[in-house]
């Protein structure tokens, strides 16, 4: 549905700033009904990338093809029509403060000169969809961040677009509200079979929302694939760094402080990180481990997530024994196609009880 072919963007030098090569040959294909994530650090070029799709930014090379039409050659009249078929949601909502919730959602229809009664008939179900029917006559200043973003989403959907561009839509929201907005977008994607392009710097957004992801770094795609694979086996350092934040969250700071790298002193216990993925993720691994290694394992920390309905878990365990037993345990885990490694050693007396 959306195809980017060798997309280039160079911002020319201006006002003492050197020219900036923001996009360096991006190739990408996004299918109908897909939620496609583009993740990268700030300054990686992801915002520029999404803005070239509706030509808020003109590419300096390559092509953007949507439904077989090359966007870069559209006349201004055609571009206006095309933009009306693409909804966009923004990080800072970009709502008109002078208009009510209803007025904001109605704006795209007014711009397209839809008659007044038809506008009312189309705005109401949108407000329903995002759960804001009771705020119809409120002004944006009276709404919470999450509610404002719901208005932004309703506004982006009211003209029945064929795709939705989401530019850091949850970056200004707290975690709980973020989750609600992501759920809403997922729900909309399923109900309307709407193609979505999602820009974010938050791995959790990609994990909870997207089907496929592209990692962009310094204007180039460095990794691409379905969410689960990218999450479980990140290959590029940038991807690993983005995911590390998620994984490290599983190991509390207080524990990280007392775990040190090997070799372990006598009396110290090895700490093993076990990553559960795939079909064996549900196995009762800990009790088996104890039996096979002949030592007890103390669970220090852990977390189980579901990515695209597949379990993805991380467990940090302390082996109550020596290195030999720990290695035996690791070999067993690996034989079950799960990954395990010793990440350090810990003095058992320093581990908080319980």
């Amino acid at each position, binding site marked *: 549905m959306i195809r980017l072919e060798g997309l280039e963007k160079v911002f020319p030098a201006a006002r003492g700033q050197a020219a900036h090569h923001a996009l360096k040959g991006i190739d990408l294909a996004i299918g109908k009904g897909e939620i496609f994530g583009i993740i990268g650090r700030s300054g990686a070029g992801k915002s520029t990338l999404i803005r070239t799709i509706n030509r*808020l930014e003109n590419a300096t090379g390559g092509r953007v093809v949507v439904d077989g039409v090359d966007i870069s050659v559209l006349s201004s009249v055609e571009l206006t029509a095309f933009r009306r078929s693409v909804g*966009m949601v923004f990080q800072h909502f970009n709502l008109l403060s002078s208009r009510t919730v209803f007025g904001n959602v109605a704006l795209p229809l007014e711009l397209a000169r839809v008659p007044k009664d038809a506008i009312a008939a189309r705005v109401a179900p949108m407000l329903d969809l995002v759960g804001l029917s009771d705020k119809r006559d409120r*002004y944006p200043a009276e709404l919470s961040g999450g509610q404002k973003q719901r208005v932004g989403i309703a506004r982006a959907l009211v*003209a029945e677009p064929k795709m939705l*561009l989401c530019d850091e839509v949850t970056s200004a929201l707290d975690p709980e509200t973020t989750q609600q907005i992501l759920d809403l977008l997922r729900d909309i994607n399923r109900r309307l079979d709407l193609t979505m392009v999602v820009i974010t710097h938050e791995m959790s957004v990609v994990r909870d929302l997207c089907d496929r992801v592209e990692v962009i770094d310094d204007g180039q795609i460095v990794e691409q694939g379905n969410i689960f694979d990218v999450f479980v086996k990140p290959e590029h350092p940038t991807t690993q760094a983005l995911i590390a934040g998620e994984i490290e969250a599983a190991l509390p700071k207080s524990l990280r402080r007392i775990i040190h790298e090997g070799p372990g002193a006598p009396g110290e216990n090895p700490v093993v990180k076990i990553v559960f993925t795939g079909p064996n993720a549900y196995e009762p691994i800990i009790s088996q481990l104890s039996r096979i290694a002949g030592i007890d394992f103390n669970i220090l920390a852990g977390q189980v997530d579901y990515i695209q309905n597949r379990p993805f878990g991380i467990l940090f365990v302390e082996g109550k024994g020596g290195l030999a037993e720990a290695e035996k345990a690791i070999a067993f885990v690996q034989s079950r196609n799960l990954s395990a490694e010793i990440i350090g050693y810990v003095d058992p007396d320093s581990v908080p009880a319980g």
Partner: protein
Amino acid sequence: MSIQILSLLANAAWETAYMVLVALSIGTALGAPLGVMLATSGRGELFELPVFNRVVGGLVNATRSIPFIILAVAIIPFTRLVAGTSIGTSAAIVPLTVAATPFIARIIEGAVRGVDAGLIEAAQAMGAKPLQIVFKVLLPEALPAIVLGLTLTTVLLIGYSAMVGAVGGGGLGDLGIRYGYQRFRPDIMAAVVVVLIVVVQLIQTAGDRLARRLNKRVR
């Protein structure tokens, strides 16, 4: 205070109101489009016309740098051309309008520039045409600031209208100078000052209130 003085005052107040309101209306009609153009014709903006922007900006600055009393005298030939005469209340409207237009243009420019650029971008993403952006986004969003600016302009014009009194324009200023100053009637001078203070207070209060009512940003 005698009936006579009251009638003089009422007549002068009416003349002032007439001059100020007409100059304000024409000045807004001319200055608003100029202001919108000034705010949107810079490099990389909605109606990119950098040369136009610089020329109009220069003209506006030039007009605004001339003290009003000098401007009023200097453009007398132009006033005669437009109004047929250079004396009287109607003629005074010409220099007042000439002074008000660039002032209002800058006021509107500032108000429009105060609108978050993200809103322009959002409107463009919705497929808004440039004029739709002006009328559906920029002006409604800038309205509270525009109202405050026009209130300021009105007060300024009341002051200027007193100066055109000096060149035969009529109005409260004229009354103050001719009766209060030249005929040594401090009571009339005081009455004029009181009326001006009250009127300016009322206008400022009304403008502030209206702007606050229109501003939906803070609740």
